[in-house]
């Protein structure tokens, strides 16, 4: 039996004057498990805020109606929903969103991911990044076409190679982890999902005190302070949870 011990979350726009294009699904109890997610509307395109909120709404519906649904089927179905946005309004044709969700059930952690939000899991004294960014720079590095030093001089850091959008191929990352492998001596597991506006600041110094690292509420407020002190670079969202198995 999985028990949610504590959780913290925020989702804020870069500028207070404009809408937040991130959407979040705070931890939700489904059957014997927990589901949480972040979708980040792709900033360059009209209707991206709508796309991210629809992605979250559809994800919730899909997993609530069949919690064993296959990850690729989840993304395919959400993509169909996003495609329909432009049926009545052509200007929304390029609306796009990322989506990273985490479904914990049956002692398993199932992760579905497209885009550049990141899911981390606590392992020892560190948080390990589980998802891989679908960004231009990451792809160029993976394929050894450019070195890190070459990429530093290049634009494209914010260019995604996959997203949920009409006409863009889906490149779904599916990860399955065993809860037991990440549980501490008390059976506690910590997970964090962040949009790029949040992990931009986490990545700069990926650590807090051990007390903060194990407490989702402290983690949440410490990173929020760090982002707001430095000045947001994008809309910023985070969900941190601690569960007990």
């Amino acid at each position, binding site marked *: 039996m999985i028990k949610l011990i504590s959780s913290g979350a925020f989702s804020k726009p870069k500028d207070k004057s404009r809408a937040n294009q991130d959407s979040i699904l705070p931890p939700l109890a489904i059957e014997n498990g927990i589901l949480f997610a972040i979708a980040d509307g792709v900033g*360059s395109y009209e209707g991206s805020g709508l796309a991210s909120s629809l992605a979250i709404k559809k994800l919730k519906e899909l997993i609530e109606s069949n919690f064993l649904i296959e990850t690729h089927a989840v993304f395919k179905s959400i993509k169909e929903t996003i495609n329909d946005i432009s049926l009545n309004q052509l200007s929304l044709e390029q609306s796009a969103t990322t989506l990273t969700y985490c479904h914990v059930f049956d002692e398993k952690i199932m992760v579905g991911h497209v885009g550049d939000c990141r899911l981390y899991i606590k392992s020892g004294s560190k948080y390990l990044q589980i998802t891989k960014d679908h960004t231009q720079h990451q792809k*160029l590095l993976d394929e050894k076409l450019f070195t890190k030093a070459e990429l530093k001089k290049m634009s494209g850091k914010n260019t995604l190679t996959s997203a949920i959008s009409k006409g863009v191929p889906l490149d779904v990352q599916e990860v399955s982890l065993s809860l037991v492998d990440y549980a501490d001596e008390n059976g506690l597991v910590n997970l964090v999902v962040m949009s790029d506006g949040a992990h931009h600041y986490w990545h700069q110094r990926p650590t807090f005190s051990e007390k903060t690292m194990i407490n989702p509420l402290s983690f949440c407020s410490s990173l929020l302070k760090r982002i707001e002190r430095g000045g947001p670079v994008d809309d910023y969202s985070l969900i941190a949870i601690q569960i007990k198995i």
Partner: protein
Amino acid sequence: MMLMEQCGNYLIEPVGVIGRGGFGCVEKINLYNMYQGFCGSFARKIFSPVDESCREEFLRRFKREVNYQALCSNSYIVPVVLHSLQGDRPYFVMSLADSDLTHDLRAGWMSPLQKLEAVRMVLTGIHYLHCLKYYHRDIKPSNVLRFSDGTYKVSDFGLVKNADAGAESELLTKVARGMGTEKYAAPEVYAGVYSERTDIYALGVLIEDMNMSDIPGVQELINKSTMRRPADRYQIVEQMIMHINKIIEGVSK
């Protein structure tokens, strides 16, 4: 005489369709001045997309194509002589070609020196584009046209990108969309990266298409242009021009 259309101070007499694409068609036209004096035969590219759902995006690209191509003034770039971008059927008029490089290569009449000269012309045209900070992004033999004086010129600016314009949207997240023709696409194009070096890769494949690797120096030119890592390729087209000049010098001796 057929019904004439007016474009500024000129009259256009359509002759017949000579090509079609997703954007619409290309037709041969006869051009006259207002006194019905014959100015010559030209090609007119007319915008009428097959897929109406893409009309807005295609129209944006079509207008960009006209603007970029019209700004070019180089012996090895097909010149735009007239355009009308208003109304339901936007179009532009350019010089009428006799053939394109694909057809000429298939016909098999080109000598090694003619092939090398054709390559030099294409390289000079692309070098000019790069100096304007434009990337062609769709270099291939069918986009290289031959004119009556034997000159080869670069055509089809449908995918041309202004390198400076890219920086403006860098702050916002966007999704990379690959474009161009697969065979001529450098590996980094699949991640949405375009640069002088992606055009250089396409030029290398185009040279390979010309079947002249037995000429001393040509295979090295192809190899260096099509290296997998962009940093290992020629960095600017001017370096390729220097290389081809040496090859031509050797062949001409």
